[in-house]
């Protein structure tokens, strides 16, 4: 309606202005007689002279018309009656933070997506079909998030796209595709899954570094890929680990692998800091990318580094590549090293000298012998939070309270772990065992003879390490965060104490369980993973401070669990507890796929190659207003030319 009003007002106005505009120059002449006759002749003989003389008016009307048309915003549908529904998949993974395209790849992807949205036809005065193009936007890294459901509201879409924040996660398109298809499913599909509505078209804005491409299947026509990024140069840390030496527990070894994905050798300094103090800076020179031996793939130039320091206390190690490059997220890696801690063992037993001496031989820092009653008392107290013991050895005792922990169980299994006793065994030999399992490393069970044993009925997920002829002998069960190594016999009813294998088994089991403990407390995470602390008193207040986020206050649940849903960004997270030492979590990219930032021109889905669009995104609809404005400008110029030409006559 507005267009008609605008035309109704402006066109007569222009005509009026044209008549007003004629400010004629006065010219004295001897007589107007002949001129009047000439004008009369002109008018009588050529009725169209008036119009021809007013070619300026005609040109102005044309120019005005062009401008009005431009205001109406006509759009040339390049795709004809193509799909009316689009899903924009915008990759926000770590590699999209690369700054080879300024300001960043994600910003460029967002810009392209917005260009597309802006090129969509608006609700118009002259729109012939009422069916609106609908667009949905999904941002994905490891997980997918629908930032805007199907809508034809351009402003809402633009706002939603603008609000997409960069993440440091790996990119996986699976969820995004599932979500897109779920939403894009035509509502009124018939039995054959056919519908009047055409399927939605997917527009992927990414650098192509997506982990799970091989697992996904898309049709050639279904997905349109717009590649973002141009430069592969990146030097990054793809792996880092810091651990205490087994022998010398004061010594902490830091291992790290650098990879250069660029086409030139990369030189930089690598800076090691411990607790924010720089302790070493080393120059490195990493080879450029090279073809693999079979010539099919390119392999990054890699370089391993090692660094060690001595510390008894907990420490945060930071390694930083000093030279800045396109991707910042993989230039810094953190590792959290826990304080040196000798193995502490609780032996819950009615008295077992054999076991005690075997455990002592494992060299623990602390070995407490507890009666079942003592243990029950302690377990009721602060046991859960303090976790004073790395390993608890249950020597054929039945206990009621079983705090979370790591257990080596001889004989009677604890209750509540889905292991039941099915009967008694007698005179059993070990028929088979897994020699490669760390618990049974170097242990010879050939000579083990059990005079009495139990038939243990294991849950399906149990790991059987050794079997008697009639049932499992040694098995590993994990339940509710606890790990149990179960042996189906009391050690004193076997000949095992006299075998060297017994001590080896004890040692292996201690190391294995202790390692389980350290796995649990190891604060090394990948972006997108949740940060969890368990075993806190219910209602404990904690504050989490991390990179790129405001401090978050969390309260422990009744089960003693504190959980930050996802560590979005790489860096060091600090969890503070009232009255306790703060806990650190290192979130590192450590992802070869994301560090390899060279944009992929072709996506290889399972069995389907999809090439990146070469044309920039303006295909959906071509707005015509710039051309109309140009035409108006041209008409104005022409008018000027005609005007001056007339003056020349």
């Amino acid at each position, binding site marked *: 309606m507005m267009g008609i009003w605008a035309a109704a007002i402006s066109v007569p106005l222009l005509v009026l202005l044209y008549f007003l505009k004629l400010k004629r120059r006065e010219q*004295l002449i001897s007589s107007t007689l002949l001129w009047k006759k000439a004008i009369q002749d002109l008018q009588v003989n050529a009725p169209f002279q008036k119009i021809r003389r007013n070619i300026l008016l005609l040109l102005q009307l044309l120019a005005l018309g062009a401008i009005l048309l431009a205001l109406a915003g006509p759009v040339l549908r390049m795709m004809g009656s193509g799909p009316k529904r689009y899903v924009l998949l915008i990759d926000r993974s770590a590699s999209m933070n690369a700054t080879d395209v300024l300001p960043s790849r994600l910003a460029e992807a967002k810009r392209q997506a917005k260009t597309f949205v802006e090129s969509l036809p608006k609700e118009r005065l002259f729109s012939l079909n009422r069916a609106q193009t609908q667009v949905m936007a999904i941002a994905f890294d490891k997980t997918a998030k629908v930032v805007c459901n199907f809508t034809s509201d351009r402003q809402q879409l633009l706002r939603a796209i603008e609000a997409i924040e960069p993440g440091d996660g790996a990119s996986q398109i699976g969820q995004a595709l599932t979500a897109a298809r779920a939403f894009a499913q035509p509502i009124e599909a018939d039995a054959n899954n056919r519908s009047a509505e055409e399927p939605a078209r997917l527009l992927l804005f990414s650098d192509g570094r997506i982990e799970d491409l091989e697992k996904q299947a898309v049709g050639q026509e279904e997905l349109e890929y717009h590649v973002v990024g141009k430069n592969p140069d990146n030097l990054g840390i793809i792996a880092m680990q810091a651990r205490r030496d087994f022998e010398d527990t004061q010594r902490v070894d830091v291992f790290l692998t650098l990879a250069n994905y660029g086409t030139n050798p990369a030189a930089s300094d690598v800076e090691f800091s411990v607790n924010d103090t720089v302790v070493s800076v080393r120059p490195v020179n990493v080879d450029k990318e090279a073809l693999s031996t079979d010539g099919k793939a390119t392999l990054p130039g890699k370089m391993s580094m090692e660094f060690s320091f001595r510390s008894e206390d907990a420490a945060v190690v930071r390694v930083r590549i000093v030279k800045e490059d396109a991707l910042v997220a993989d230039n810094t890696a953190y590792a959290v090293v826990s304080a040196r801690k000798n193995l502490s063992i609780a032996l819950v037993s009615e008295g077992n000298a054999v076991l005690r001496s075997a455990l002592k031989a494992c060299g623990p820092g602390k070995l407490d012998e507890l009666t079942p009653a003592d243990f029950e008392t302690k377990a009721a107290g602060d046991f859960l939070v303090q976790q004073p013991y790395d390993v608890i050895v249950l020597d054929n005792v039945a206990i009621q309270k079983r705090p979370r922990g790591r257990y080596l169980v001889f004989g009677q299994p604890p209750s509540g772990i889905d292991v039941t006793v099915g009967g008694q065994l007698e005179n059993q030999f070990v028929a088979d065992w897994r020699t490669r399992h760390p618990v049974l490393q170097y242990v010879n069970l050939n000579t083990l003879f059990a005079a009495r044993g139990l038939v243990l009925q294991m849950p399906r997920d149990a790991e059987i390490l050794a079997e008697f002829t009639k049932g499992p002998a040694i098995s590993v069960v994990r339940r509710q965060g606890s790990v149990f190594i179960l042996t189906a016999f009391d050690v004193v009813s076997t000949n095992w104490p006299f075998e060297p294998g017994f001590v080896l088994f004890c040692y292996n089991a201690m190391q294995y369980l202790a390692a389980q403990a350290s796995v649990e407390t190891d604060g090394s995470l990948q972006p997108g993973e949740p940060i969890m602390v368990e075993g806190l008193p219910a209602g404990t207040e904690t504050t989490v401070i991390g990179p790129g986020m405001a401090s978050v206050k969390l309260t422990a649940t009744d089960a003693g669990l504190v959980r930050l849903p996802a560590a979005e960004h790489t860096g060091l997270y600090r969890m503070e507890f009232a009255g306790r030492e703060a806990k650190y979590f290192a979130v590192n990219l450590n992802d070869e796929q994301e560090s390899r930032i060279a944009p992929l021109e072709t996506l290889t889905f399972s069995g389907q190659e999809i090439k990146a669009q070469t044309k920039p995104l303006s295909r959906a609809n071509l707005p015509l207003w710039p051309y109309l404005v140009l035409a108006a400008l041209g008409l104005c110029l022409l008018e000027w030319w005609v005007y001056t030409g007339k003056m020349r006559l």
Partner: protein
Amino acid sequence: MSRYLAATKQKISSKISIKMESITHTKRKLTDLLEPQFMARLDGLDLASRRMLRGQTQGQRLSKRRGQSVEFADHRQYTAGDDLRFLDWNIYARLEQLFLKLFLEEQDLTLHILMDVSESTATGEPSKALFIRKMAAALGYVGVVHHNRVTISAFADGVTLQLANQRGRGCVSRLAEFLLTVESGGPSAFEKACKQVVQDRIGSGVVVVLSDMLFKEGYEAGLKRLFSRHYDVYVIQTLSPEERQPTLSGDLKLVDIEDADMAEITISAALLNYYRKTLASYCDQLQQFCMRHGAGYVLAGSDASAERLTLNTLRKSGLLR
């Protein structure tokens, strides 16, 4: 508008008068208008009339009247009271009858120059007024030196100024005085002027109209008054180069210098074309009109040479010989 017009008129007239001033310094002589060599050549020319017209006094032209001259015309019978000097005594001796000899009388020729001094003649480059004055000077000079009776009437809105009945070389300075002092101005009323001229009864003779002939009221009524058996009429139409080939451009409001009449035009090639056609047909119609009534017609641009016009064109047309 009227103020603007007045100011512009003022400007133009001052320009003209300056021009006049510059050529009319101390003594006003005809040589200020005409070159001496040109005047010398004019001496050899005389006015001619295509009709035998009746003069007023004795002159150098034969008239239809019988009178005193050496040119024998006829005999007639003597009646009482006739002058005895003209009796043909030879016939009386032979026939013994009294016959009187009759002679054709030689009379003078009246040249009447009607000179347009309306405002419109002040325009043009060179000015039409100047050209008209030159032509009037040349013709007047030829007239007076051959003892013709020359009357010059300057007309604008009717006859504004008149120099009547000049004859003989002695009148040349008066002629010059008149031509150099008469000023251009006022609207043109051709018919009124013609009416006055006819009513004055200055005498039959040659009438030369010097004008641009661009009269809103039309030239026909005025000229018809002149077309009579008493007058041999010549029309010398003078147009400025600007009028013949306009160099106007753009959107213009044309203002008539005489009556402030306006014409709004936008110059285009087509319009200019029509203007030229209109001008040509206007001149052509005027010529046809003159020919139908036995009058002479000459078209002259104000940039044309007065000398060539006088010595060639007017001689061919029969006004001078």
